[in-house]
């Protein structure tokens, strides 16, 4: 058991945790080491993410063919679907970090969970809004309470709940614990989102892409895949940058605290 404060101090003084705790997992999950690995790759990752996202978005908006049935409205797919996938994968990452946090009490997992939350919530919001804007011209309504739409709205609320819970405690440690439990309990929502369109009648159409193939014509599938890769990399870059910033912020405050103690 260690408190966040001591974790911050350890990071500040150098990387002692690699020595005090064994295992390959801890080797890579050490905040100081994470910062040293991440900082040099971040600009490159950011550039590639931006390039892919812009390519996918422009391709989908202006160059992909209109759909035989939905016409141009189907273009919303190229932002809606990537946002939806990123929201769900982001939540899976949040849950994984929560699991590491609860079982191994690892400080980097706590920081990662805290920083994933707002980014994931943002992507979920984009998914919901773009979906509503897609629904109006095709279905004839912005919103219905079918199983797919409702379960994605629940995902959004899980993210919001996690954001509030992690930051809502006097003691950081307790906030992380509570947030992690919420995040893990919410994992049951992920298979519900994915399979809702198969298990129940929904207004939302079925999944176009599965492990066995896709029902999207290649000239529309390629921009979708590029856009998806772009969104995933954007998410990764944003989260890594936020974790890096959080590590430095903690280091700064622990150094400040140490110098205040010295002066006193």
């Amino acid at each position, binding site marked *: 058991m260690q408190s966040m404060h001591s974790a911050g101090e350890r990071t500040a003084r150098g990387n002692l945790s690699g020595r005090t705790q064994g295992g390959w997992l801890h080797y890579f999950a050490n905040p100081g080491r994470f910062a040293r690995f991440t900082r040099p790759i971040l600009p490159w990752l950011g550039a590639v993410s931006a390039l892919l996202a812009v390519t996918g*978005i422009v391709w989908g908006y202006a160059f992909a063919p209109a759909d035989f049935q939905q016409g141009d409205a189907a273009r*919303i797919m190229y932002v809606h679907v990537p946002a939806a996938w990123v929201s769900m994968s982001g939540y899976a990452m949040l849950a994984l970090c929560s699991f590491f946090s609860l079982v191994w009490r690892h400080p980097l997992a706590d920081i990662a969970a805290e920083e994933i939350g707002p980014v994931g919530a943002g992507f979920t919001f984009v998914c919901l809004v773009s979906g509503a804007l897609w629904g109006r011209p095709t279905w004839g309504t912005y919103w219905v309470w079918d199983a797919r739409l409702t379960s994605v709205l629940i995902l959004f609320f899980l993210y919001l709940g996690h954001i509030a819970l992690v930051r809502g405690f006097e003691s950081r440690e307790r906030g992380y614990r509570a947030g992690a439990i919420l995040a893990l309990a919410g994992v049951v929502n992920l298979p519900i989102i994915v399979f809702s369109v198969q298990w129940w009648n929904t207004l939302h159409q079925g999944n176009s892409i599965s492990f066995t193939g896709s029902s999207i014509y290649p000239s529309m599938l390629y921009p979708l895949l590029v856009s998806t890769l772009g969104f995933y990399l954007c998410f990764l870059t944003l989260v890594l940058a936020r974790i890096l910033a959080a590590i430095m912020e903690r280091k700064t405050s622990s150094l400040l605290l140490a110098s205040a103690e010295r002066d006193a």
Partner: protein
Amino acid sequence: MIEHLNPWPFINGAYGISVLFLAATALLTWRRLRQATKRLAQIEAS
């Protein structure tokens, strides 16, 4: 009677919110990272 809606305002809205979100979060994150780097460097130098 079938409603013929012009889909473009909806398409523009969906793309608009996506691009706005990505650009705004990127900007905010970059500023936070720069700020954190600067402050840490200041503290470590002193």
